[in-house]
């Protein structure tokens, strides 16, 4: 029998080690797996590479990991915001490595990693700093830059509903990067508000098929 549901956050994060690369879902405040991140903080693994759209706000989410000295490198599209003082400070002090990626390239690099694609050519970033040092090719009169896949050891995601096979349904714009990240990690761990019986999610409404998911943990809805 397949049962990907685990009962505790500690079990959900079992085996994650120092030096791990970790994809973290979420855009702004939506879709962020806060409970998994807090549990990762408690687990006290270090020298992490965090791959996320934003660098967290205040002392919450990714910002908590940053503030706690857990992260050596962050791969990010938009690390700046009004309440993003921890990332600002670490960056100014030279205490964190930042790889800045345009958001569409960020999504496509994860999609490529999850889909077995070795690289792709995109027009995004051509003629800018982002393309420096990368291969440029002209197709049909237009320049494109070669971008490589972005994969990771772990993905920490949030969904609305799951079943024991790991099928996922997200809520509204809480979906954002999660379906891509689920495909791009060796170990995909998802916190959900609700676990239903097999068939409880309409097959046509499954956003992420369970084949991409290894562990599911139900958390109390924090909202």
């Amino acid at each position, binding site marked *: 029998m397949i049962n990907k549901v685990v009962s505790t956050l500690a079990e959900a994060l079992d085996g994650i080690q120092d030096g791990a690369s970790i994809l973290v879902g979420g*855009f*702004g*405040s*939506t*879709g962020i797996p806060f409970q998994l991140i807090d549990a990762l903080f408690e687990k006290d693994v270090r020298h992490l590479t965090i791959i996320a759209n934003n660098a967290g706000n205040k002392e919450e989410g990714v910002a908590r990991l940053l503030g706690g000295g857990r992260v050596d490198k962050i791969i*990010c*599209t*938009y*690390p*700046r*915001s009004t309440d*993003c003082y921890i*990332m*600002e400070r670490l*960056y*100014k002090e030279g205490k964190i490595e*930042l790889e*800045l*990626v*345009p*958001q*569409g*390239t*960020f*999504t*496509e690099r*994860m*999609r490529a990693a999850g889909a077995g694609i070795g690289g792709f050519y*995109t*027009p*995004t*970033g*051509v*003629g*800018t*700093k*982002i393309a420096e040092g990368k291969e440029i090719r002209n197709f049909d009169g237009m320049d494109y830059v070669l971008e490589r896949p972005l994969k990771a050891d772990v993905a920490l995601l949030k969904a609305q509903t799951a079943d024991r096979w790991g099928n996922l349904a*997200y*809520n*509204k*714009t*809480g*979906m*954002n*990067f*999660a*379906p*891509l990240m689920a495909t791009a990690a060796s170990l995909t761990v998802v916190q959900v508000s609700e676990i239903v019986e097999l068939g409880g999610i309409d097959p046509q409404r499954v*956003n992420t098929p369970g084949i991409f998911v290894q562990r599911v943990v139900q958390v109390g809805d924090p*909202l």
Partner: protein
Amino acid sequence: MKTAIVETELKPLTRRQMAWRAAQDIVDGSYVNLGIGMPTLIADYVVAGREIIYHSENGLLGMGPAPPAGQEDLDLINAGKQYVTIVPGGSYFDSSVAFAMMRGGHLSMVFMGAFQVSESGDLANWSTNDEKALPAVGGAMDLAVGCKDIRVLMEHVTRDGKPRILKECTYPLTAKKVVKKIYTDHAVLDIDEKGFVVREMIEGLTFERLQKMTEAELHLDPQWRVLDVPEL
């Protein structure tokens, strides 16, 4: 005795008036992305009767206005991280689909803010080259490629009076040769193969005076009109 040349007192457009002017150009049935900042004001001034579908790159097509206070849905935000609503007919999707709509050329028009625009249509709107500032690019570079109709809203000059409309951008580029039209607080300009063409200027502004505020060479459309907007 006063001998100085008295220049007419000008009344540059407010940000809301710039948004109003841009909104007049969105045709019925357009799929539009409004960039973070001033462009989001455009949605307030769309011409009645035109059906326009707004895209937000965090995974939403058919974005509606902000919800009434107290009715915010924590899982429903736009790319500017503000609470929004979804209109009937709207849809949710993942980020790769959101960016396929942008990069794949499926949007009709994109309105963005900018620091600088060059006469070949180069766009600089993500970094001011400040080495100490934390850089952030988000979806700006992807938004600027793909769509064939990229329009910019920005003040004509910087706060300290320096030109933003340049021969070459001095700030790091977001994308090359993409901007087609600029709405400023003084004028409306198109970019074509010969460079900047002035289509509209505010009341009292002369072409010579506008040229003085602009580093790049301007060309005046013989059919130019007064940039006329209502009080808002």
